[in-house]
Structure formats: structure tokens, C-alpha cells
């Protein structure tokens, strides 16, 4: 007869937050060491700013009108680069399987990835925003602090869906193409709200409140939907 196993040292279901914290810490450490996502996003966004600034020479008034669109479209394209890499790390050496066989909650993984992407895109925005101001001679006429709120709500809207759809597309053969194909159409309401709110703040001729409320509702709805569906996506074969 064999000796009995020692008393368990594990929890049947570890908490959401400790696993989220550990996963986020691990992802930040991996990104700090490789700098894959940040570097590719920054170069991409920088190229967009420079190419657009050389392509046309708008007046200050025109810049305020079109800058919202330019800024958010360049951030969206750049974010896709990072979003594609989010899950690539987990596919290398099939590490995702180690997570799937563990009792850790699926939503810890999703939220950690989404928050990580939010931070990466946030860094990109913090670096690129001053360049936009310089290249397009921008000076907000409306309350500038509202730009921060729009940036936070808009960035979350992009990354929460982007993280979710990147997880769906990881098992597809051409996932780099698949992600924008799924993500862009579903992001149109958010993108439109972000552009309209940013233009309103830069031009100061209308209140961005309506668009910001729309963004907040979009964030709540899609975050909830992603959290409800992610476990199914993670365990799909």
C-alpha cells in the first residue's frame, strides 16, 4: 500500500485578482525584456504621423477638424500590431495549455491581457500625442482634460474587443489578417465616438459629453460580453 498524498497546498479555484496580478506582472516583464509590442507600435504610429504630415499641409482650423480621425485611426492600426502579439506569446511552447489545465479563472487571463494592452497602447498615446500636437500645430480650444477621459474610454474600447478577437483568431491560419477583419467593423461605433469627441474638444464648438457617454456604454457592454464569452473561447478546440 502506498503512502497517502500530503494535504493539498493548492486551492481548487484560485482567486481572480491574484492570478490577474501574476499574469499582468508576467506579461509586463516579458514585454520589458522583448519590447516587441511597444517598439512595433511606436514605429508604426510614427510612420503614420510623418507620412500624413508630409502628404498635406492643413491650416490650424483644418487640423482641429481632421486630427481626431488621424489620431485614432493611427492608434487603432498601431494597436492591432500589439494585439496580434498578445496571444502569440502564449502559443509559443504551447504555454496556453498550461493555463488551460490549471484551475485559474479564464477571466483573470483575459483581464490581464486587456489591461496589459491598455497600458501598452496608453504608453504609445503618451509618446505620440505630443508629436501630433507639433506636427499638426494643434491646441485644444475645449477643456483639454477631457481628452484624457476620451483617450481612456476609447483605448479600453479598442483593447477589450481587440484582446477578445485576437484570442478567437489565434487558431486561424492567417490571424494577422483575421484580427482587423473582425475588429474594425465592430469598433466603428467606438471609433466614431472617439473621433467626434476628440474633434469637439479640439475645436471647442460642441460638447463631447454625448460621445463620451456613448463610449462608456460601449465599454460596459463589450467588456461584459467578452467576460461572459471568454472561457468558451479559451477552451474551444
Amino acid at each position, binding site marked *: *500500500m*502506498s*503512502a*497517502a*498524498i*500530503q*494535504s*493539498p*497546498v*493548492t*486551492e*481548487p*479555484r*484560485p*482567486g481572480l485578482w*491574484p*492570478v490577474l496580478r*501574476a*499574469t499582468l506582472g*508576467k506579461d509586463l*516583464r*516579458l514585454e520589458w*525584456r*522583448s519590447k516587441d509590442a511597444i517598439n512595433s507600435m511606436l514605429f508604426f504610429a510614427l510612420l503614420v504621423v510623418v507620412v500624413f504630415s508630409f502628404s498635406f499641409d492643413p491650416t490650424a482650423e483644418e487640423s482641429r477638424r481632421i486630427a481626431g480621425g488621424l489620431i485614432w485611426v493611427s492608434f487603432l492600426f498601431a494597436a492591432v500590431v500589439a494585439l496580434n502579439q498578445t496571444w502569440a*506569446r502564449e502559443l*509559443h*511552447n*504551447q*504555454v496556453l*495549455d*498550461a*493555463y*488551460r*489545465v*490549471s*484551475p*485559474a479563472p479564464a477571466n483573470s487571463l483575459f483581464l490581464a491581457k486587456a489591461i496589459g494592452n491598455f497600458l501598452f497602447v496608453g504608453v504609445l498615446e503618451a509618446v505620440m500625442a505630443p508629436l501630433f500636437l507639433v506636427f499638426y500645430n494643434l491646441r485644444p480650444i475645449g477643456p483639454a482634460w477631457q481628452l484624457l477621459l476620451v483617450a481612456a474610454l476609447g483605448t479600453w474600447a479598442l483593447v477589450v474587443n481587440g484582446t477578445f478577437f485576437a484570442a478567437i483568431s489565434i487558431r486561424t491560419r492567417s490571424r494577422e489578417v483575421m484580427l482587423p477583419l473582425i475588429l474594425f467593423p465592430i469598433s466603428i461605433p467606438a471609433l466614431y465616438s472617439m473621433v467626434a469627441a476628440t474633434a469637439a474638444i479640439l475645436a471647442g464648438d460642441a460638447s463631447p459629453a454625448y460621445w463620451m457617454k456613448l463610449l462608456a456604454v460601449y465599454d460596459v457592454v463589450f467588456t461584459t460580453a467578452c467576460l461572459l464569452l471568454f472561457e468558451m473561447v479559451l477552451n474551444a*478546440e
Partner: protein
Amino acid sequence: MVEASGDRQISDASSDSVSTTIVNSLTPPVVLREVSRYFGRFAALRTVSAEFEAARLYAILGENGAGKSTLLRLIAGLTPPSRGTVTLFGSERPASVRHRLAYMAHASLLYDELDAMENLRYFAELYGMHDLGACAHSLRKVGLDPALKRRVGQYSQGMRQRLSLARALLHQPELLLLDEPFSNVDISSAREMVRLLANSRDNGCTVLVVTHQPALLETAADELVQMAAGRIVQGAKAQMGPVISPAQSSTPEVVR
């Protein structure tokens, strides 16, 4: 052997009735009932029924494509069966028993950019373990130095395999599923790994090892399980199920 499984059952299921606990303690940790797994038209597993008892070390043998890896992935809950049921520790819900099993795959399941301790610390958190001492202990058990700061990407294949085993043993699982753990490992390291697996078995763990090197497990294994063409043809109380014809199934039977 049953006693080992029962002790753990009682500690994990304090809210369950005593009668349920007793029933579960008598149930083998792994029971497969008429399990089939199809990938398109290909049947990786064909109507497999088998039982793997507690605190035994099984060596699963067979040619490439026999269904060995699929069998392990199915038991690990990574691949759902197309048909039939997989019961682990008396439960048909893999999520409820995940903390009691460990899986070591062909791939290392490790992050190349992290060092060994960083890897193990992360995986320990996934099991609700916050004790760093357990990570260091697990590394020492497989002969790796916890103080080594080299990233796993720079490890030799043998060191990776040993680290993978340390990851699998970290939370003291009751069911250990290993897919070719000795591949690319030198003979002395492989023997050391076998010794560790035998120790785990002696401590009440059920160990299933898929291998192409049965000689290594000759003395340690309690039972050899032979697989061929998606079936268990010998061992693990296997029963040969009926071949399901395409007419009986929406998924066509496979022509290999």
C-alpha cells in the same frame, strides 16, 4: 492505493456528503467510457473504455498516430471527446478537478524569456500557491539550481524537460500526465526522472507516461498500456467497444 485517493477526496470535498466521499474514494481517478475523438474524418481515438487506478504508474506505448497524445489531452481536459465520457476523480466536469492533475506535453509549456524561478512562481500562482519555497524545492528535486538566472530560452533540451517536470510536480498533483518526458534527455537524467515519477507514485499519485522508450520504465511501471489505431489493445482494464458505423454517427468513421 484507494486509501491515498480517499484522503485527498475528504480534504477537498468537505461540503459533500460522507456517502459521496466514500463512493468517490473507491472510484479510479481516471475512467473512460466509450470515448471517441475525431479530427474531421480522422478518428484519433475509437470507442475507448478504460480505467486507471490510483497510485499506479502506467507506461502508455504505441506507434506514432496510435492516439497516445490525444488520450492524454482528453484526460487533461484540453480536448473534449467527440463521444463518450471522461470521469476524473468521480467528476465529469474537468474544471472541478483541475487542481488535482498536472500535464507535461511535447512542448515545454514554459516562457523562454523568463528564468526557471520566474516561470515556476507564475505557474504556482495559477494554483493558488504563494510559497516561493515550494518552487525552489521543486527545482532542486529535478536537479536544477533555483539561483540560476539564465533564461529558459538558453537552456538545453534536457534542462527544459527537467524544468517542465518541476512545473508539473509543483502543486503535488494526484494525477500526472506526461507526454514523452524522456525525449532528448540523456540517459542519466532520464533515469533520475523515472525515479521521481516512481516517488510520486509511491506518494499516491497516479502517473500516466506516454513514451517510445519503454525500457526506461521497465522496472518502475506497474502496467504497460498498449495502444494501436486509436484503441487501447492491452492494459488499463480496456474494453474493446463496437466500431460505430457512419450510419450510426453524424461523424464518419475513419479510414486510416
